[in-house]
């Protein structure tokens, strides 16, 4: 039973989070920061997610290519 629950959890983890959990964590941080700042300041915050993606994507790819070399 525990093995089945574990397999079920592993399936959903793999389906949603995928190969690199750091990307999911980074997206979470970027959106949480956007939410926090949008509630507390008048500063435009749309760029935070853009910056997050601009950083997360090459960093994640770099991790894979560095492993191969």
């Amino acid at each position, binding site marked *: 039973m525990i093995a089945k629950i574990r397999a079920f959890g592993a399936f959903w983890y793999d389906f949603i989070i995928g190969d690199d959990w750091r990307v999911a964590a980074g997206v979470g941080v970027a959106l949480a920061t956007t939410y926090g700042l949008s509630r507390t300041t008048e500063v435009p*915050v*749309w760029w935070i*997610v853009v910056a997050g*993606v601009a950083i997360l*994507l090459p960093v994640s790819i770099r991790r*894979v290519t560095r492993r191969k070399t």
Partner: protein
Amino acid sequence: MNGSALFIAVFLACLVEAVEALTIILAAGTARDWRSAITGLVAALLSLALIVAVLGPAVSVIPLSGLRLFVGALLLIFGLQWLRKAILRASGNKALHDEAAAYQAALIAAQQAGTRRRGIVADWYAFTLAFKGVLLEGLEVVFIALTFGSNQHNIGLAALAAIAAVLVVTVAGCAVRAPLSRVPENSMKFVVGVMLTAFGMYWGAEGAGAHWPGSDAALLVLIPAVALYALALVAVFRRHDKPVVGDTAAARREGLS
């Protein structure tokens, strides 16, 4: 713009997944037993329809800002996964997806497995191979169609795009009776990755309280910007020594090399 983007994203994602599912069904049917493979396909389609019937109404009752934050975050994570793999493939760091090779691998595995009967299913291996393949590939499509459709208040159009893609692949599969290896899957995955990432950024940030300059028109900048950035990353990470095995012919065919 949003309606056509919704249709293109769902159609392409569904087309790619349907091509992969077709390969698995062909392998299960050819190497094992067609009746069991088709039973597996029908069982998986019924399971997917049940998931849509349960999740569809549930998603539509979530308030829009909460929905956009939740869906945007998931789409962004999904999109970055697709885009990351597409960039790795296009830059030669990961073997391109080759449907003919995938078919051969599945065929050999299916031929070597033992036969077992369970209830009305004559060949349990063929049934589970087809069922799992269609369910797993279909789940991703269901997720994309539901999230795009609910956010745009147009689940009907998303469903239409998904059904159109499945019909195209079914007709082509019946005509060719072989894996659809000429479909430029890797390029299509690249486009889907770009669209999921751009829409994920837009909806996620908006759901989190951000206001995009130009409102919806921001997507007209975001989509090409993400595409250009991804292409730049392909150039930056391109392997100049030796691309990962099995990709040269396909890469040339898809114009990625």
